[in-house]
Structures are given as structure tokens and as C-alpha cells.
């Protein structure tokens, strides 16, 4: 999957290599599961009394390094690299890491994004927590009953300067310090992340044209995020939720949702959030209910994960 995604940005990375040189381009990726499916296969063999698969190597397959190795090998970028695993905020956090190292003049460009694959553990784990929807997920819907798991990813190229149509303006990060799997009441951690991002971007809430919500479609997460959005923004600020298209990509969702946000800013449209019923009256966010044109300049993309890890990205049209 890493190789497939990289092919889509190969021409832009080639240009960046010519411009900055390989040692000045970092690679920062997010993932929750990385090599877990390979470990599952090996363990299944072991439990069945069979030897491990011939190609199984705990050091090289189990951990998260594989996706970094693949993208770095295919791209030829030799600058600093990292994999971040902070559950569902993982591939949004890499934007923050890259921006800090750009600002510190350690790098001039970075490949950022996230990749996650499905495995038994994730499916059974979320099922055990009672969080899997019986139908297509309905972020912020009154009748939402849980999430749909997905697999996939996204890669993007950040550069210090260039011709890109959109820019990463600022990030805001916080910790709930509340519970491993439940968000803080009233969305306090999310509010802190969104406000920090706006402060660093030197923007007001009404400068934001739309919010790409984390929108998992679970009862408690959407209630907390909805409360946070309504605390910081007006009831008329447009909210987009895209997990009805992709499922919840876990460690890769922040990356793909940042990509959707960037595309909306660049192309001037917002997708329908695919809600079938009514928006939850307890978190009455102004959700997109159909494809619509968009002409604003800035957007916020939220990602919140297990362990109370929160991040908001502010993206904008390049001037």
C-alpha cells in the first residue's frame, strides 16, 4: 500500500529532490497497526503447530518501521524519518513534526501521511468495545450506532516554499488526561487543540470556512467533538465528515482527511457527508448534506485518538 500511494506523488517528490537534495527531505508517517497482520499470520501458524512462514521476521515485519523503509527506499529521500503511532491522531501528528523540523531548518521538505491495514485484532477489539456500526456509519447523526473500519492511506508533500495550491498554516495539540478510550466531557481536550491551532495560525474562528471533523460516528466521540466545535465556532460553520466514504482508517485517517481538506480548498467544493437521517440535536453541527461549492480561504481538520491524543490542523489556500 505504501508503494502504491507513493507512485501518486512520485513526480512531485522527484521535483523536490532536484530542488532540495535528498538529505533535506524527511519522511514522517503515521500508523496504528503497521505489521500486525503479518504477526497474526505467524502466530496463527505457531498456534496451529506449524513453523512460522518462511518470510516472517519479527524485527523487520512486526514493527512500524516497514512503511518508512518502503517510502524512503522508493523516494530516495534520506533526511530524518519517523513513524508516529498515537492511535487515530497518528497521521495528523506527522504534519506537526514536519512543520517543527521545517521551522527549525533541519529539513526543507517532507513526505507526510499515514497508512493502516485491517487485521483480526482491530476488528475484534472494536467489536469488543461495542463500537462497530450495524450499518453504514452516520457521523453526527441522531441514530448513529458506531464506526465502520477501513484500510487505506494518503501521502502528501510539504515544502518550505513552492507552487502548491494549499499550505499547512498551523497545528494545535493537546492531551485529554482523562480516559484511555473516552473523550474528555464536553470535548475539553478537542477545544484546547482547536484553540491552540487558531492561536498559532493567528486566525479567528470566523476566518475558518469549514471544519473537516474527525467524526467517527460513535455516540461519545461525536458528542464530544460536536460540543467542541460548537464551543469554538458558530452553529453556522460548515462541518464535513468523510468517514462514511472511507470507513475509519485509524492511524491513516488524519492523513487522508488532511488530503480531503486540501482538495476542497484547492478545487472549491465540499462533499456531502452522506447522513441519511437527522443531525443529533444534542450536537447540532452544521453538517454538509449535499455536494456544495466553497470559496473560503481556511479550514480546520481534526483528529482525536485513544489515550486522549488530540490535534487540529489549519490549512489554507496559498496566496
Amino acid at each position, binding site marked *: 500500500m505504501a508503494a502504491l500511494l507513493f507512485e501518486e506523488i512520485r513526480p512531485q517528490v522527484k521535483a523536490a529532490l532536484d530542488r532540495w537534495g535528498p538529505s533535506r527531505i524527511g519522511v514522517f508517517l503515521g500508523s496504528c497497526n503497521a505489521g500486525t497482520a503479518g504477526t497474526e499470520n505467524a502466530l496463527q501458524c505457531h498456534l496451529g503447530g506449524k513453523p512460522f512462514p518462511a518470510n516472517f521476521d519479527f524485527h523487520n515485519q512486526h514493527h512500524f518501521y516497514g512503511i518508512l523503509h518502503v517510502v524512503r527506499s522508493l523516494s530516495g529521500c534520506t533526511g530524518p524519518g519517523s513513524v508516529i503511532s498515537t492511535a487515530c491522531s497518528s497521521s495528523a501528528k506527522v504534519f506537526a513534526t514536519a512543520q517543527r523540523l521545517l521551522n*527549525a531548518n533541519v529539513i526543507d521538505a517532507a513526505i507526510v501521511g499515514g497508512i493502516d491495514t485491517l487485521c483480526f*485484532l482491530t476488528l475484534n477489539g472494536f467489536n469488543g468495545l461495542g463500537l462497530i456500526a450495524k450499518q453504514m456509519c452516520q457521523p453526527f447523526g441522531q441514530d448513529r450506532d458506531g464506526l465502520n473500519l477501513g484500510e487505506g492511506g494518503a501521502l502528501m508533500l510539504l515544502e518550505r516554499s513552492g507552487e502548491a495550491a494549499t499550505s499547512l498554516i498551523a497545528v494545535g495539540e493537546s492531551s485529554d488526561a482523562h480516559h484511555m478510550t473516552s473523550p474528555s466531557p464536553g470535548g475539553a481536550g478537542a477545544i484546547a487543540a482547536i484553540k491552540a491551532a487558531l492561536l498559532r495560525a493567528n486566525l479567528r474562528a470566523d476566518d475558518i470556512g469549514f471544519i473537516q471533523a474527525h467524526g467517527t460516528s460513535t455516540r461519545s466521540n461525536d458528542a464530544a467533538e460536536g460540543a467542541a466545535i460548537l464551543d469554538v465556532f458558530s452553529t453556522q460553520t460548515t462541518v464535513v465528515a468523510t468517514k462514511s466514504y472511507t470507513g475509519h482508517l485509524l492511524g491513516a485517517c488524519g492523513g487522508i482527511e488532511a488530503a480531503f481538506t486540501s482538495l476542497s480548498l484547492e478545487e472549491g467544493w465540499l462533499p456531502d457527508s452522506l447522513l441519511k437521517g437527522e443531525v443529533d440535536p444534542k450536537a447540532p453541527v452544521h453538517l454538509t448534506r449535499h455536494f456544495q461549492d466553497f470559496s473560503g480561504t481556511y479550514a480546520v481538520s481534526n483528529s482525536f485518538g485513544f489515550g486522549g491524543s488530540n490535534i487540529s490542523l489549519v490549512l489554507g489556500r496559498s496566496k
Partner: protein
Amino acid sequence: MEMAIAGVGKWLGSENPGTKPPAQLLPSRVRARVSILTCALAEALQRAVDFQKITTEPSATVFASAFGETGPLLSLLEQALSPEGEVSPLMFMYSVHNNASGCLSIARGDQGFTTSIAAGEETFLSALFECYGLLKDGWDSVTLILGDEAPPHFFVPAEQRFESMAVALHLVNCSPSGPRRALPRIRLHTRPEENCGKVPAPPNSLVNHPCVSAYQTACLLEASQSGTLRLAAWGPWLIDVLPPLD
């Protein structure tokens, strides 16, 4: 890229064979549920706090582990692969890579910055870049907590095994004046000709540990010694451990 070290702590599995370290930062009910790794990271952090020589503003916290919650993950996988296929929700909750980050932020009531890195053999190097970026971004101090627990023997051939280990470093920006002149420093660079001293070999039990260079760095800092280490098998990056400016 230079940073000063205000505190250092380390823990080895052989200190508490077969049991979890005390990890007093964790509430006892949490300590009972979490892995050896999460307890080890909490223990190393406690030791770095005890070692600390200067006062700093609230710190950002960077957790790092090549493999993460190996023990709970493998137990869960066994449950998931059983005919019933049901996994314990509690154990699932504690199996995410950033479990220690979540548990310690809750235990300490820390609502500030935290992250969790998982970069294989480059984990220590990646974590140091993250710390450097945070210090340059305006944080007064950054706490790096890093470690991995020994994987089960049935999963790893003898020549790849290693002992459980955790290290914590409390990093601050270098300063040419004030009390920070008296702190030892680390410097990241790619110039082998600037080698500033040989480093004692790590214990045999850590030779295969993905973060062995972090343990060696902690040993040098605790012993007030200088030396240069390769940070990862990949790439040109070296770390110098340097004496205080004073």
C-alpha cells in the same frame, strides 16, 4: 543540533526479573493492568525526575518504542485467533502503541503535548529529532521516555533476543549562561571526524535491542563521561555526549 540534559534515568529488565518495576507514578490499579513496558517507561521517568538538577517549565513528553506493547498485543492476538474470536476490551484498550503516553498523561493530569514514536532501529534518532523540533518550537523542556520489552522467546530467534530496557532523558535548550551551563550536552551530527571518544560496549543482553544507543547514552550521562555513538544502523547520524560548558 545540540541539547542539554537536565535529568536521566534508566531501567533494565534484569533489575526485576519476571516482575514489573515499582513505577510509583502509576496508580496501583493501573500498574496492575498495564504491561511491563508501560511500567518500565514510568520507572525510567521517575528516575529521571529524581536525578533532575534544575527547575524547568512544564514539559512536552515524547514516548518512543520500536515494537510497542508487544506482550499485551500477542496475548490479544491469541484471543482474536481463538475459535471464539473475542478479545478483552480492557486489554485492547491497553494494547495501543501510545498506551504509556495515555496512562502517564492521565496519572499526571498532564494536558500538554505528548506523542508516541515507533520507528524501529531509528526510534532513538527519530525521538531526538522530535525533541529538538519541540525545543526550537518554544518548549522550555522536553522529556523523552523510550524503551522496549523483551519479545517472547518463541517469536524471536536466539540471535535476535534482547532484555527489556527503558531510558528517560529530560532535555532543555542549551544556554551560554545561567545554571544550564552546568548541564551535560548531546549533539546530533553527521561528521565522523568529530568523534569525541570511545564508548563502552553495552551489556550482551542489549546488543540486539533496537534502542541500545539510548541506553549507552544514558550510561555516559550518568557517569559524566564523553563519547560518540552511531544512532542507528541506518544513515549517517551520530550522537556526541559532551561535558558541561562549565
